[in-house]
């Protein structure tokens, strides 16, 4: 796995998200109120809504299209909805943010 720098924590508003373009498609990088950072493929498991546009509260994001609530840590939808989106590993070094991407296994994420 390669750790690729994508920017600084300050680039993302608290309780907000930014997107990163990658060979896996668009990735949403979230920052919680407590400055934790998570990354998910920017596609809601329901019908592909852009999760980066959702409202972030706690460790969850609410999809802007039909209000599914997705757990940022696991990518899973809150019950009773079922579905899961892919999680991308993130590392924080000081305020620098790095995404764990495996450039050679593009097929891992559909």
């Amino acid at each position, binding site marked *: 796995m390669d750790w690729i720098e994508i920017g600084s924590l300050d680039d993302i508003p608290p309780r907000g998200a930014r997107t990163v*373009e990658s060979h896996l498609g668009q990735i949403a990088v979230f920052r919680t109120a407590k400055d934790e950072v998570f990354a998910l493929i920017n596609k809601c498991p329901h019908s592909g809504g852009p999760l980066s546009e959702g409202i972030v*509260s706690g460790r969850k994001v609410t999809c802007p299209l039909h209000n599914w609530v997705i757990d940022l840590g696991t990518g899973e939808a809150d019950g009773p909805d079922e579905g899961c989106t892919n999680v991308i590993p993130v590392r924080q070094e000081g305020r620098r943010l790095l995404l764990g991407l495996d450039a050679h296994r593009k097929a891992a994420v559909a």
Partner: protein
Amino acid sequence: MNAVSRQRLVVVGNGMAGMRTVEELLARAPVRYDITVFGAEPHPNYNRIMLSSVLAGEKDLDEIVINPRSWYDENGITLHTGDAVVAIDRTAKTVTSASGRVVPYDKLLLATGSNPLMPPLPGLDLPGVVSFRDIADVEAMLKAAQAGQRAVVIGGGLLGLEAAWGLKRQGMPVALVHLMPTLMERQLDVEAGTLLQRDLTERGLHFFTSGQTEQILGTDKVEGIRLADGREVPADLVVVAIGIRPNVALAKQAGLDVNRGIRVGDDMATSDGDIYAIGECVEHNGQVFGLVAPIWEQAKVCAARLAGDQKAAYATPPLSTRLKITGIDVFSAGLLTAEDELDSEVVYRDAAKGIYKKLVIREDKVVGAVLYGDVADGAWYFDLMRQGKDIAAFRDRIIFGQAYADGPGGNSGLDVAAMSDDTQVCGCNGVSKCDIVSAITSKGLTSLDDVRAHTKASASCGQCTNVVQAILSHVTGADAAVAEAMCKCTEHGHAHVRKAIVEQGLKSQAEVREALGWKTEDGCAKCRPALNYYLLCAWPGEYVDDQQSRFINERVHGNIQKDGTYSVVPRMWGGVTTAAELRAIADVAEKFQIPTVKVTGGQRIDLLGVKKEDLPAVWADLNAAGMVSGHAYAKGLRTVKTCVGSEWCRFGTQDSTGLGIKLERMTWGSWTPHKFKMAVSGCPRNCAEATIKDFGVICVDAGYDLVVGGNGGIHLRGTDHLCQVKTEEEVLEYAGAFMQLYREDAWYLERTAPWIERVGLDYVKRRLIDDEAGRKDLYARFLHSQTFAQNDPWAERVQGSEAHEFKSLAMVG
């Protein structure tokens, strides 16, 4: 896999009855069987009942799936869709499917449903003739509707009426032919049937009652129908909905005992003890079935038997019917009319309100009910009927409903406590009172949404919503309608929170959460936008709007579309534009290759399909031509529609266009609990449709009629008349005061229509008309808050605010 000990269950028919039985079976004996399901349709199991709502455009096909494919996987069920079973070999104990699969069984369950009854009419095989049974039928009908064709529906029962209404909703001209003199004659008495026909005629359906179809006309496709009396009705689509017949072909061929349906005993077994049958394909004690309520009972019994219970026995429960046409309330159960002198009828009519109620009573017990126009007490009458309760004590009041029957001091509303546990509350999904109660208590549910999500009760046609709400209130002990918690983060309702913000001087979301004991640290997507609005409204100029608590549309000032692009609607004051503005819009559309330019229903122009990163540049160009955001995305002032008025129109009494522009200039930029729309019509012909707006003005010779609380949308509501005023200044004052009252009073996401229904028009009149000083204060507060609100959000973003919204952070890999 330890398949050795498991028995094999094969289910023929992947419909409502079959899968309900499998669900019940899994709940009782999850590992007893290896289950294989064959379905002739290419879909997973869906809610057939809701096809009517799909046709009417109220639901999407993917919303009516009951068991998605993942459900079969998770439960280890082998599913073959699009593959009908064509033969049963009872000696070898195998079934064979159309595609050639041969699957052995230990137990076989037939759940093949029924087939639409097709009359032997010439022309029946012409393209354009469909029935109303499955998804394929609905897709064919929607296609015809899109092509803008005309429809004839044959059959005036539940199905036919729902088909006709759905097609009408899809914009088709629809005629309905019914053999009998009144509609739904098996469920309604003559009087209710006549009212129904009157109401549906008003809604634009055409009826040919006592109409016998003789022939379907056309040579290579349908062109119409001819009735026995010689009348012809043109049509490009003919829907036949005259009834259903149990689908028994497979059972018959296997040599099972079949009459009208597949004969089953109280144990739901057929004449072969290893073969069960259930649903619309069966006949039990000479009776066949066409509604889900008895089928849910059968499913329970059948599942219990399959799970090894030797005692479970089926008996047909009393049945009730409802018609799923939004805005038409019909309920019927039991006898429609008195049968002999022992029976008596109690009838109530209110012609003005279009209400009709009839109860059939035998020996002080309710044995039948027909309700039209007001069905609130349907569940109660039905329960009295099922329990065979003696009603002598309140017989004289029973027709007025439960609230009156209980007498003064009695329980008003639904008496949930008295409702028996097995009362079926939601017919669409087969949910009983006890299912709901146990979900609420075991999972700690507090809101209607939760109950819906967990039990599916009221999640389909929604007609039982009141009952579900009443059960929720009863169990949680809260008057949930009033005090329902804002969300899972708090016990407090909207009213309490709004009051606390003002009275305790709470000035930030964090303070509110702290002071009111929120259960979560930073709220959720439900409470945050509400708190943000309440704070903004309470402390104008002081509270700093929290972008991260706004829904995406309000954050980026455009409407998100299903493909993640945005729409841009510039304000067009009072619907008036200029050549220069149109030129600027045209330039923007070309420059940014905007795929769709559309005139909206709000008298302005929508640019649809703008890429998010282009938004600031699009706005900059529009700003440069003097245009600002139309807030087409906002819980705030949307549009002020106007008609041409006295400036041009020969009927115009006042300058409606000019007044509309003044209203829009005064109110734009304001945030409100839900969206807020206005209109000004120049005379009572009302071309600007002011009577379905939140605030409408109708100009008359003597001045201006002010109307409030109107709403288009799913639940149409005409406005209430507030008052008449003489001058434009007064119009502005009342408009501002009304808006402020709404801003300060209503709950977030409550539009003026439901708000007025809740607080009452009298209250609004008291605050705005009777209390002149109060009105002026409200108006002043409105104008004060506007001094902070009227900043064009587009211009702010063009200048760089919230820039992070529009650029991606990085490109990698």
